[in-house]
């Protein structure tokens, strides 16, 4: 039998939930940040535990392995130095040509490294939290990437942490361009709840010449993501809406399951 107190409790909880759900956006965001800051001591604990584990792993790594890794890194450094020299030459040439033609020069990317501190606990969103916040100059909508490619954008910022919505989340849509002769454009959006590495490229025109393994980059349209950041490669293409347009599945270049450090791109 239901008692009066049961009804009162039910009513109070429903009322509280409705009030919190209908709070103005800014108030809700502040309350969210305040509640999230309760976990700060655990962030520190988890970070120091990771450091201790990392240090222990470093300590038990054999010297032979370290020497081998050192040699590999030296080789890679030399290769990258050569590439950087070549790139500087090409960039100089590009700048001279742009000046001749009268095009606006591209601004170099300003990047800041951030550590991934938390992942999304709910199964119906894709987001991470990073250890940079407003005190580090972060703002909403800054692009986030790894050395492999685009990861997502900053969705909300607190003093010490920020939330990044990842590619494949319904709240992260990106204007993209395919690297082919027709330079087809479309919009990258979520594909489904299970495949974390696959996204959907939608709104491709009927005349698009799409093939698997073609590379996809940001198109620079939309105003959030600058042009030319790698997104991934086309897996397959299929007509939709009775063949009026095409839709492609794209395998992401960055491994979103193994994100530990990301770069935030500043304007």
């Amino acid at each position, binding site marked *: 039998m239901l008692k009066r107190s049961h009804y009162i*409790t039910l009513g109070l909880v429903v009322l509280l939930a409705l009030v*919190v*759900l209908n709070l103005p956006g800014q108030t*809700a965001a502040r309350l969210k940040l305040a509640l999230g800051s309760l976990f700060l001591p*655990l962030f520190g604990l988890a970070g120091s535990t990771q450091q201790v584990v990392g240090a222990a792993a470093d300590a038990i790594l054999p010297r032979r392995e370290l020497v081998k890794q050192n040699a590999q890194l030296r080789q890679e450094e030399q290769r990258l130095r050569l590439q950087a020299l070549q790139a500087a030459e090409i960039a100089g040439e590009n700048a001279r040509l742009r000046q001749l033609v009268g095009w606006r020069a591209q601004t170099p990317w300003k990047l800041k490294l951030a550590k991934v501190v938390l992942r*999304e606990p709910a*199964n119906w*969103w894709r987001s991470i939290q990073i250890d940079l916040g407003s005190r580090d100059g972060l703002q909403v909508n800054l692009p986030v990437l790894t050395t492999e490619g685009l990861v997502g954008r900053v969705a909300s910022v607190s003093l010490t942490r920020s939330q990044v919505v990842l590619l494949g989340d319904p709240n992260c849509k990106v204007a993209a361009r395919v690297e082919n002769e027709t330079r087809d454009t479309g919009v990258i959006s979520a594909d489904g709840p299970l495949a974390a590495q696959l996204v959907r490229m939608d709104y491709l025109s009927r005349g698009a010449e799409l093939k698997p393994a073609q590379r996809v980059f940001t198109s620079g349209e939309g105003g959030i993501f600058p042009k030319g950041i790698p997104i991934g490669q086309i897996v397959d293409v299929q007509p939709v809406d009775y063949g009026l347009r095409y839709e492609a599945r794209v395998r992401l270049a960055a491994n979103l399951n193994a994100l530990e450090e990301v770069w935030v791109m500043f304007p």
Partner: protein
Amino acid sequence: MNWLNTAFILGAAFLAVFGQAAFGSARFLAGAQVDLLPPLMVYAALSSGLTTVTLLAVCAGLWFDSLSANPLGVTVLPLFAVGWVIFLKRELILRDQPFAQAVLGAAASVVAPALTLLLLLTMGSHPLFGWGTLWQLVVLCAGGALAAPVWFELFGWLQHALVHRGATESSFRPDREIRRGRRGALIGGYRGEVIDRARSKPRRPR
């Protein structure tokens, strides 16, 4: 003892929310992150009062939403709904049986996220939702079935280790004492009633 139990439950919810956000290996292995809050709600509803159930739903729901992209407060109602229904029917549930705990944990782990998704869709949000959600619910169901008996075991152990238990009443009753002596034995006496066996015996003729 009650407030200590509530504190244990809230502490466990806090750590569970952080653990779910900090360690996401289950999502990469199985395609879904196991939710530990609904099985914890099963434990709270079966072993504590309605105040604890309410506190757990409100605090754990808000903590979960603060680390998630969910709108703040959307997890509170589904968690409370699960706890409230189990609390109302708890006299009919064999709460000490691990099988019953597992079944309730599995059911709660499916119902709570399904209600949250329904609430999100009703509010006009666009969460990731499709055929893959069914597989995620299966993983959540299996995770909840495993987690519920573990919570019960963990809290049982915690209470055994940390909570003072009052001395148990002895089965000895002074009014049922058998006294032997010169005047004979007192057997089967009840509330001062005395049966003198010696007197009731017929005397032997000398």
